[in-house]
């Protein structure tokens, strides 16, 4: 075996980690909320969806920061939407899930459901 330096392995591991960077639970919530809100997905409606479905009044700031991060990862895209009287004439930022976001979401959910498979009895027991 010819010489191989540590650098080479290091690169390899860093690349691995980067590729396997999976979605966190909160990110899954926000992405699902965005999908649920449909055409009119923005801060208020996304948070509303999460509240409505899970009963969790999640922190407003956490939603904004997560939306931003998901956008940076390329899972979401956003545009400025129309202003309404209810908002005091202010515009909103509308979000839309991109293909990559849908793929990542499906992988994460598939993983979760596969992990859950056959565990229902165990879950009920507790």
């Amino acid at each position, binding site marked *: 075996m*010819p010489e191989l330096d540590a650098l080479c392995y290091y690169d390899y591991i860093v690349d691995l980690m980067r590729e396997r960077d999976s979605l966190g639970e909160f990110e899954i919530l926000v992405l699902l909320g965005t999908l649920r809100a449909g055409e009119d997905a923005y801060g*208020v409606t996304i948070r509303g969806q999460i509240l409505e479905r899970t009963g969790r009044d999640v922190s*407003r700031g956490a939603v*904004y920061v997560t939306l931003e*991060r998901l956008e940076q990862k390329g899972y979401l895209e956003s545009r400025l939407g129309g*202003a309404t009287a209810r908002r*005091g004439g202010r515009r909103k930022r509308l979000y839309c899930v991109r293909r990559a976001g849908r793929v990542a979401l499906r992988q994460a959910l598939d993983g979760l459901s596969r992990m859950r498979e056959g565990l229902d009895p165990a879950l009920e027991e507790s």
Partner: protein
Amino acid sequence: MTRRAGEPPRALARLLELALGAEEAEVLLGDLREERERGRALGSGRSWYWRQGAAVLVCELGARLRRRRRHGGAVLERAGRAVRELRQTLRSLRREPGFTVAVTATAALAVGSVTAVYSVVHAVLLAPLPYEDSDALVRLREIDASQGGRRDFVSPPNYFDWIEATSLESAAAWWTPFVTLTGEGEPERVLATLASHELFGVLRARPALGRTYGPEQDRPGGPPAVVLSHGFWQRRFGADPGVLGRTLNLDGRPCEVVGVMPAGFAFPAPGVELWTSLQLRRSEEPTMGTPYRGMRILEVVARLSEGSSDEDARSELDAIARRLERAYPDTNAGWGIEVAGLLEDSAGSARSGLLALLAASCLVLMIACANVSSLVLARAQRRARELAVRAALGASRSRLLRQLLVESALLAGIGGLAGTWLGLTLIRALLAARPIDLPRIEEVGRDPRVLLIGVAATVASGILFGLVPALRATGGELAARLRFGASGAWSSRRDARARRALVVGEVALAVALLIGSGLLIRSVAALLDVDPGFSATDVAVVGSLDLPRALFEDPARTASLQQQLLEAIEGYPGVEAAGLSLGIPLARDADFFVAQSPFELPGVARPDAGRRPSAPLHVVSPGFFETLRVPLVLGRSFEPRDARGRRPVAIVNEAFVRRHLAGVEPIGQTLVHELVLTAGEEAEREIVGVVGDVRHFALNAEAPPQIYLPSLQTPWPRMQVVVRGSGGAAGLGAAVRRAMAGAFPDVPVPPAMSLAEVAAQAVALPRFRAELLALFGALALALAAVGLAGVQASAVAARVREIGVRVALGARGTQVVGMVVREGLALTLAGVALGLLGAYASSRLLAGLLFGVGPGDPLTWLVAPGLLLAVSIAACWIPARRAALVDPLEAIRAD
């Protein structure tokens, strides 16, 4: 102030805008407002808004901070990785010192050659002249169509007619003699430019102090003015501003100092100390037999008028020349006007030679790049398995590519830096040791822009020798390489083919370069072989000695004083012979007093009834021919008895006899020359002697027919002294100085020079050219040899097993050696064939630089390829020996 209910507090809005930007603040406030409207919010409006706003802000800023830290981390990490990469590269280069030294040294040599030559090209040919809008400046000259377009100076009346051309904004006339400065301290002989007042306007030159002179001081009979050079002002007047208004005596003419030019202004050439009124007359009586319009003595520089091209000027001046031909056929028939850009004109004949050198240095760069490329390729081949493993483990192609390119860039950078320094240092040292006479040569290497060519050459070489091997090494065959291993035949075959192609190219370029340099070396050898017609050893030159102007009026007295001076010089111990002459052969100021003087030979029938023959008139003293050992072929030399009032005599050279006196006895013939130099001089002379031909202006030009007049009959107050004897130039010069101090204490005596050195200057430029080109040729030869040896060595290394099998099957050592050498020779022959084609195509370009050999000189065309073949056999010998020593058992067992 009205405020709608439910609106967020303004202060909060401002704060959010500040923290998040207007757009994000708008979105957030809109969301908050909407949630309030929907009735989800509890509590009082203002505090709710503040709480919500603050919470979001904290989250947002926190996230930003984390992001920044992560981002900063990434930058640090990337920098760290770059440092690690660099260190790794350095380590791997240090592990192969031979490779590293070979590559950097080759790159340094190549970049150094290009930088060195380019620095000369830049200074002499490219750098703009130091005048405003210098592109619009042109030199004007008269050309004599009847003598093959011989260029000449401009006569004053012609100049006055030319400046009426509308395509010229203005034109200035000048000439640059040495003048004697008296009155203030030591008398001194200084180079002065007598220029019409337009000069400063044409050059757009402004004085650093005072003013320049105008038409008033340039008018004939007006009060003449002088403008000093910065250097002269500092040297002679200690930079005293009070010099303005003082009066200097120049050749006895009192001139008012009106200004000082800034440092660096040196028109027409460095060394000029002052500019003074020319005071040119538009018309004058014929002097000494020549009409004023035929006195071609001036140089002219002009500025094209706004919007005119040199073509416009050329056609307009052509029309003027034709008009003048019709109006003044005596003096202007057959004369045209030459318009040349000042920059191109100042470089003159040096241009083609320098461009040939630049092309040669670029060839060296290409050969060097091919060589280094081949080395890098070979190294990549050695590392093929390492690269393949890394690729298999997930290192991306771009990453491997980057590492290989970092390596090449590092090598090229080190080599280029060293080369640029080397090139500039060497060229300056070379020029200092062996000055060559090129305009602005003293500027070489001073312009920092020259460094750009070093950088450009470095970058070019880095890309040239780095990219191809890197792309090949990281190409799609990596997996295959892994399977076959570093010495596997499959992986290296394509690389080996590439390297062989590079070697063929190298050899071709080297052959072309060797042939070019061979031709130039043969030219210089032929030039040095030329017999100039005189002997320069043990001869010193002192000149010019300017006797007081008053002596112009009294030729008899001038003659006797000069004769006394010669006798005084000859009286000093160590002096064998001494003579006076108007111009020294092969010196920069070799001009005769009269370049072409019409004459008649009444005793000889003229074959061509058309044009009257003419020849240069040369004035020399008794002792001149003896001092320079110019052979006397017939008759006698000049003697002290050839004085004024005695029978007027002349001596001609052999070329004159061949051309004009063929088949007749030259001695005793009567020669009537039209031009009379001094008052009371006879124009009808008897030819008393014939001397050998002297190459007066250049070694590469046949001596034209020449007429010599004795200085005792045609005495001229400005002469140069030649002295033969022992004691060297300094000792002989001292004798002249002491003799002058006795006879003319007021006349400055310039330092003596050895005539051999003066004459060597005549071949300095061709020699410089040939030496540099020979250096490049040698470099190319060495590089090609090294490249060939390298390729054959790795071919042998790659085929160790095959060779082992051959040896095992009974091949003898000599057969193995023969095989390797034969293969190397095949590459060389292919390269030589290509190179001969290239040389054939390009040798025509050199034709103008050759002397004594044709572009098809058989010796050069045989020796250059022969040399390459011999060197390539030697280069293949080392790897071939190694191949012959392969142990078959080891070779087969290995791997």
